[in-house]
């Protein structure tokens, strides 16, 4: 644990109407590493992502990004501070091309807001060039070739949408990248490509949080695994430790006391 903690969460809890979706969860993530968050359905993984991005406010606990407490920071400010995410089902905006979707991801790097675009439209063009450049780099990196860039993103095949979504998140140049089941619906070779992409993204010096059910991928690329069950942290550690953990096996396969 020589690496600096990019994200520290301590004692974070969230409940909905008496049900503890996330209860007292603490762990930290280092830059340059893939951390995996696993657990059965309904264990609170997506809720945790929502808490980290600020979409939901936490009931208790602290979340720190590079040592800065994020309490009370709205989602858009956290995004500007360097947290990017993807979604369980890809969220491609209707009526926008692939390139535009990714350019939209670079929102925080645009120099001109509403007033700017009204007053000096020529600067918008320069701005656009720059953002398109950035978006193009990200798309190339996730392996979406140029012939796709002009197409409506929502019409793309599923696997491509997943990649575009990662490109959009990369365009935010995040310190922390949260991926919500990025391999769902991908075939083997696509999943393998994704795995190596994630490793290379982490190698940039970003912290990557991977929520995934594909254990093959999880075990092969993450340096650290956090297991949630019923909103609580069940176990934490290196892949080998987790694989051998009795509690984890029980929770994942579901051990039920004598039946029938």
């Amino acid at each position, binding site marked *: 644990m020589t690496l600096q903690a990019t994200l520290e969460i301590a004692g974070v809890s969230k409940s909905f109407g008496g049900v503890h979706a996330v209860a007292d969860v603490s762990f930290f993530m280092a830059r340059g590493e893939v951390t995996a968050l696993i657990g059965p359905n309904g264990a609170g993984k997506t809720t945790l992502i929502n808490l980290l991005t600020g979409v939901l406010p936490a009931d208790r606990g602290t979340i720190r990004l590079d040592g800065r407490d994020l309490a009370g920071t709205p989602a858009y400010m956290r*995004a500007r501070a360097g*947290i990017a995410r993807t979604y369980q089902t890809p*969220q491609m*905006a209707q009526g926008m091309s692939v390139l*535009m979707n990714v350019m939209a991801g670079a*929102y925080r790097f645009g120099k001109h807001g509403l007033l700017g675009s009204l007053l000096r439209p020529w600067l918008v063009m320069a701005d656009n060039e720059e953002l398109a450049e950035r978006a193009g780099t990200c798309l190339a990196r996730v392996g979406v070739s140029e012939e796709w*860039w*002009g197409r409506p993103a929502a019409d793309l095949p599923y696997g491509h949408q997943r990649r575009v979504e990662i490109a959009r998140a990369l365009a935010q140049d995040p310190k922390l990248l949260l991926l919500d089941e990025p391999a769902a619906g991908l075939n083997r070779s696509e999943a393998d490509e994704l795995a190596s992409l994630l490793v290379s993204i982490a190698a940039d010096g970003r912290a990557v949080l991977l929520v995934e059910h594909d254990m093959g991928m999880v075990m092969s690329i993450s340096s650290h695994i956090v297991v949630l069950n019923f909103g609580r942290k069940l176990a934490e550690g290196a892949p080998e430790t987790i694989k051998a953990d009795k509690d984890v096996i029980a929770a994942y396969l579901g051990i039920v006391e004598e039946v029938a």
Partner: protein
Amino acid sequence: MTLHKTSRLRRDWQILALVAALLALVEFCVSSQFHRSVIILSMIHSVAAVGLTLLVGYAGQVSLGHGAFVGIGAYTVAFCLQRLGLPVVFALAAAVVLPGILGFLIARPILRLSGHNLALGTLALGAVFYVVAAQVRDVTGGLDPGIVDLPSMAFAGLAHERVVFWLSIFALCLAAAIAASIVDGRFGRGLMILRSSELVAECIGMNTARAKSMIFAVSASLAGLSGGLLALYLRSFNASAFGVGLSIELLMMVIVGSLSTIWGAMFGSFAIIVLPNLLEGFDQAKQVVYGVAMILIMLFAPNGLGETLFRVFTFRRKSA
């Protein structure tokens, strides 16, 4: 790479130049006052429709009350000219600024609503404006007589209509230019994301609450500009011009045109203003035709009739 890069804004500027040139040409060619007035009205409504396209089409926020902002713009111009004796330029500026500010202030509470409730809320807002405009007779003159005899715009030997024509061309191009720079810039891309999902927009760093207020204000300003021009053109008008019917008509212009390009709004307003004026005996069946057309468009061309026609047209050409 350049193909899908930044050509959008440049292309929009080119279209704009073409439109401006075409309208100027029309100004010189059309001699009939009637046809001239049809085109003027189309252009004036286009200004508001372009603004509404930004709000409904790009940001995904329905407004069934934009007629109110047109009305506020019109009364502002009348007030500035008749009561304050301000020059036309200032009156028009006020007609842009005041609805903009009002729009910004109203947007916060009203845009907390969404979907059906937003439609209901804005509809009620438009209705409130109508009632107030009809009742505050000290300012508006009520329903009868309303605002009477604003000064003629005749200027340097040009007749009233021709001056308004040029003014409308200018206003429409201005509106289109503003809209193009918004939608083709990062703010516009943010809005399109917002339309699909507010969550995603927040998570790419957009302050969605503020963005919605801003775009509401912009569309209110453009509606106000449209109202100001309308007032200058008509010279006499009353509150009945700004009822719920106008709001629905504006929305129809957007839908008939396109929800996803600002140029559709122009097509829509020309279609809605020109058609009833060209077809004989259309009056009787107008409402039925409008209603049925609206249903058919929403069922079969929900992206806008203009856009669907355009797609079919280009598709045919490509496959031919």
